[in-house]
């Protein structure tokens, strides 16, 4: 039992290390970049060297600098999309969770329809309507994920509301808003945080897919997805340019997943037994 426990907190630590590293790179990129992002003095497709640690792209731009800006985009997409999903999803899910029969049923049906749409499809729909920009991408991804958050919230709220301590506090005259703050939120929060962490990683992947298709952030603020798309044409001369952005993406998603695993373990100690 003890051994399992230490392995679990180990996954939280590794996840935190990965994500803090990416966050640190992002923070540094705000005040310092090895070269300005549109500086093309490095020579086209130069191989890795001391002046350009990962070489340059086909326009002579430094790859390290571009990857650092990519980290900035990945994190901001993750945060903003999860923020949108959190606000919209929590509100809808709470409403459905507290609502009575017909309102609850129609809200749930709506959520089921929304969830049936893969996020990428929804995102492409919104990008088709609004034109491709980082805001469109964030908006689209956030909205797509809010249905998932909403359905989870509804389920959790229903489960908590069926508990005896809710009946007890209603009987003792506590108002509904007070019950939400005192009893509902604290009980559903742990599970929601885990879901937020997972969605954070998925948002990064979704934005990279959109950017890869040329439907994400416009140049020169290239995300990891567009870096990969550009590097594909020159993968023979400079494979590292195609490998590096993908590795960063994988690290980001694995990082948040490890954190989610660790948090889930803390939130629900009964899981320790079953894994």
């Amino acid at each position, binding site marked *: 039992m003890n051994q399992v426990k230490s392995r679990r907190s180990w996954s939280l630590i590794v996840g935190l290390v990965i994500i803090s590293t990416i966050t640190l790179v992002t923070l540094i990129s705000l005040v310092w970049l090895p070269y300005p992002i549109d500086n093309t003095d490095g020579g086209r497709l130069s191989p890795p060297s001391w002046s350009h640690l990962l070489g340059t792209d086909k326009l002579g731009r430094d790859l390290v600098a571009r990857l650092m800006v990519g980290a900035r985009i990945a994190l901001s997409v993750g945060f903003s999309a999860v923020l949108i999903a959190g606000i919209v999803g929590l509100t809808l899910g709470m409403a459905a969770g507290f609502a009575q029969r017909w309102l609850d049923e129609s809200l749930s049906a709506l959520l089921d329809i929304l969830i*049936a*749409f893969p996020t990428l499809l929804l995102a*492409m729909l919104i990008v*088709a*309507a609004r034109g491709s920009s980082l805001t469109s991408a964030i908006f689209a991804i956030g909205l797509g994920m809010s249905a998932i958050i909403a359905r989870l919230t509804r389920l959790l709220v229903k489960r908590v509301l069926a508990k005896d301590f809710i009946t007890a506090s209603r009987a003792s005259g506590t108002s509904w808003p007070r019950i939400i703050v005192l009893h509902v939120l604290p009980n559903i929060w742990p599970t929601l945080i885990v879901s937020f962490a997972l969605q954070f990683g998925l948002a990064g992947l979704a934005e990279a897919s959109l950017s890869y298709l040329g439907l994400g952030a416009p140049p020169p603020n290239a995300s990891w997805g567009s870096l990969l798309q550009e590097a594909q044409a020159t993968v023979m001369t400079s494979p590292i340019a195609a490998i590096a952005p993908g590795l960063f993406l994988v690290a980001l998603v694995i990082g948040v997943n490890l954190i989610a695993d660790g948090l889930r373990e803390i939130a629900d100690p009964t899981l320790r037994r079953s894994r």
Partner: protein
Amino acid sequence: MAKYLVRRFAFLLLSLVLASIALFVLLRIIPGDPANALLSVGATPEQIAAAQHEVGSDLPLIVQFLNWVRDLSTFQFGESIISSYPVGPEITSRLSLTVPLTLIAFVVAVAIALPLGFIAAFKAKTWYGTLLNGFSQLGIAIPVFWVGVIFIYIFALKFMILPSGGVPPEGWANIPGTLKYLLLPIATIALVMSSSLTRYVRSATLDVLGSDYLRTARSMGSTFTQAMTRHGLRNAAAPVISIIGIELATTFVGAVVVESVFALPGLGSLLVRSIAQHDYPVIQGVLFVSTFAVLMIGFLADLIQRIVDPRLISSSAGDLR
């Protein structure tokens, strides 16, 4: 079952109606006039009016919507604004690539994931059980286009044993040739998909292995194999089927990205191109067909799930899932 079937079918129809309204509203109200795609900068008011008349954007919204519903019900999606080809046949010809690509990759992925997931669960404590678990965690983290690019680098450019993209001009008339071109795209999709499927198979199997009914069956004298085939498989199947349905839908949509990586003339590349060109009839057509496919897959997955596990039918009335 019949009652459930009716309810679930009504839900499917409702979803389709809502989805088509959403598609129409999103694509008509938010952006600029679709007629703009026909015009160059500095067009005269007469030219603008003519272009609007040609694409029908001068009609009242409700008329535009009714036209759109009339076209949908016959799977006619009008004509492309850019090339003035009818959208329906174009979509059909694109589907003849996307559907086989998705289905073959899906079958390969399931064929890999089922045994791997079982082994990962049964041998969870061994080193290869741990290894398989690691593999199964990678699926949600690895971007499918990255795998595609790396496969192209290794198999098409470095060792030059497979083509890097496209399909033979004669298409399915040359089945072995086309399959050779689809091998890398199929491998790309199947790798990523089998990884995430392995995870679900593994956890469903672990749930069964730790269950009370399996222990009871064993204590009543069934052999492990008997207990597993009689009780275990059915119980593990329901959640796995629902996940497989979701994964199939995701793969169908994810094929958009893979088709772009390998420059395949499928539904996905048509969608990306039409979005870039603001070709609204094509966008609407492709998105409607994709939506239809996704909803149908969900419908079938739900039905199969309930045939396998009838307990789900009698679960709470408001819950369709």
